[in-house]
């Protein structure tokens, strides 16, 4: 019997009010404490929405993550933050990390960016960039080899994860890995990345998930199935579900709700597609997720997508 649950896979959309609050803060017209208060109000709402929707693990919204790499780039030794670069094929940009020397953890990285206290113990989901995505989207001015940087990054983040684990009961740790599928990589590159992923997640007791998106999951299959993670997730706005079903994935996340388009999918059509997959495969666990972060949608539309996942879970007897 397949257990079906729902999940989000990355940062939530900021409301117009919150975006403008950040703008006021940057212009020094809003105090840090007031900004934090507004962020926490929205984060609380986003957490409640996910709990009501019956999602298995819950993100805290990641509302202060200006991009997936920023909190890490700003707090790792050996890394600086530079100008804007395009975030894959989106009309959205991230600030490019510049690697200037050996990467290591000089202190807490995420403490200012996460709010695990908003989530019940054991249900908090933390999302981080996988080693290859972080390093490949950075500019390496360190003179060090990229392979060495992968492991330095993995080691630094592992230390951060173990520190967080001491304080909080994490439910799931997701490594977001768009760069693994954006272009097809050589098998030996993917294998080295697998070792770095293992290093990064060593000793983590929460469920470990790798999520590949903004590219065809087939680009990284079957190699990523050997990674030391519990769940592997795919962006079905890029990956053909029938071809994906050729591979046996014990615990799989199907990014079947389009996180970049406002059209609210018909639950029946989505369920039919999931059934197509289940006709061919019977995973132990199946997660229904958006294809990517919901931050590309206006917040009302993002809310609708969460409710849609809830509706789908309700119809097929899944969820918490």
């Amino acid at each position: 019997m397949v257990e079906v649950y729902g999940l989000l896979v990355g940062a939530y959309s900021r409301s117009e009010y919150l975006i403008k609050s950040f703008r006021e803060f940057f212009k020094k017209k809003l105090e840090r404490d007031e900004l934090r208060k507004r962020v926490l109000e929205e984060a609380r709402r986003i957490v409640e929405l996910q709990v009501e929707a019956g999602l298995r693990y819950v993100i805290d919204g990641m509302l202060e993550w200006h991009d997936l790499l920023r909190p890490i780039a700003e707090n790792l030794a050996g890394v600086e933050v530079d100008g804007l670069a395009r975030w894959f094929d989106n009309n959205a940009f991230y600030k490019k990390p510049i690697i200037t020397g050996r990467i290591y953890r000089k202190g807490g990285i995420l403490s200012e960016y996460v709010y695990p206290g908003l989530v019940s113990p054991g249900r908090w989901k933390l999302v981080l960039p996988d080693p290859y995505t972080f390093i490949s989207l950075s500019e390496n001015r360190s003179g060090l080899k990229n392979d060495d940087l992968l492991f330095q990054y993995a080691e630094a983040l592992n230390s951060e994860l173990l520190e967080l684990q001491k304080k909080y009961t994490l439910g799931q740790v997701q490594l977001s890995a768009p760069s693994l599928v954006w272009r097809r990589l050589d098998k030996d590159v993917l294998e080295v990345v697998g070792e770095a992923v293992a290093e990064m997640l060593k000793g983590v007791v929460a469920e470990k998930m790798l999520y590949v998106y903004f590219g065809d999951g087939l680009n990284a299959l079957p190699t990523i199935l050997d990674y030391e993670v519990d769940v592997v997730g795919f962006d079905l706005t890029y990956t053909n579900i029938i071809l994906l079903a050729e591979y046996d994935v014990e615990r799989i996340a199907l990014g079947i709700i389009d996180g970049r388009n406002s059209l609210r999918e018909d639950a029946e059509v989505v369920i039919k597609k999931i059934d197509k997959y289940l006709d061919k495969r019977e995973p132990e666990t199946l997660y229904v997720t958006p294809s990517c972060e919901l931050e590309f949608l206006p917040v009302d539309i993002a809310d609708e997508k969460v409710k849609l996942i809830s509706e789908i879970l309700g119809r097929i007897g899944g969820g918490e």
Partner: protein
Amino acid sequence: MRLFPTQEVGSLSRAPFLKKITPSVIEETKRWGEKLNVEELDRLLSILKKGKMTSEDEAILYDYASLFAIRFFESAGLDVVWDGEQKRVEMYEHPLKYVEGVKFLGVVKVWDAEFYRKASFTDSPILVRPYHLEEFLFVKSKARREVKIPLTGAYTLADWSFDEYYIRKYLDLDDPVQARLKAKEEMVLDIARKIIRPNIVSLVEAGARRIQIDEPAVTSKPWEVPLMVEALNESIKGVNAIVTLHVCYSDYTKLFPYIADAKINQVSIECANRDSREPGLSDEARVGYGVVEYFREYARWLEVAPGVIDVHTDFVEPSELVRDRLVYVAKRHGDESKIIACNDCGLRTRSWDIAYMKEKNLVKGAMMAEEFFK
């Protein structure tokens, strides 16, 4: 024929008086008005001085802003001018306000605290009325130089929007990439035919001879460059005008070879931003202009308008640097008659003082480059 003609690219920051009116704003307006020889300046100053403004006064202010910007570029000596988009808010929301079948859904973050109001196509689009016509007619009535009107292209309008209409018929496909591509193709071409072309036709019928189509989104999905080119051709089908494609802050190599199929006259690209500030004609000094090789190889007949003025810095390019950039591009291209001198992009983020100095040096540098080839 004149070598290295000069032209602007689009925006200019707001005229000095399009803000809260204070004595210093009035003084600044007077300074610019006199410097640019703006006609009927006293009338504007008396409106500014009277305090409370009617909506009619505000409309007059926008006309004056447009006039100031036209005179700004003319006074700097540019050959082809526009009004610095003084009456526009931005390049996405404004056009779509004039389209039925489109619904604005809310804001989305672009980076940090930058955002835009994103719309969804919920039906086949219908143009309510051409949205740049009045603006063009005003500029045309005032300009003493040739006019080029910029407008946002079909590809960018589609790429920056959601699709709740075209995708519907492809939702059953197992291959999501094919589904999205087919829907996108229909969407982009529909916008080109139903929105952009009618706008361009109305402008040309009203006397526009130069059209600039802005497509900043084009290289974000390099595999869709051929679609952008197809849309460009649909947008200008049967149009008798000089057409410029403007792309900036992108990997221009992705335009090739497809851009050779575009039935346009010019390509305007940002280059100064990626160039060094050192004078000279060496490849190292002119590191921002290597892309001209692609034009030489794939589309030699196209005019190239490489930005020789960086619009994101207050550094005022000396005229010698402008000259060297143009001479380098012309030599590398092999046909100096195909090179236009212009800015990287619109000057919206620069003060008028800085922008004016930059434009003066653009013109002077272009004349020096022309001298070089004589």
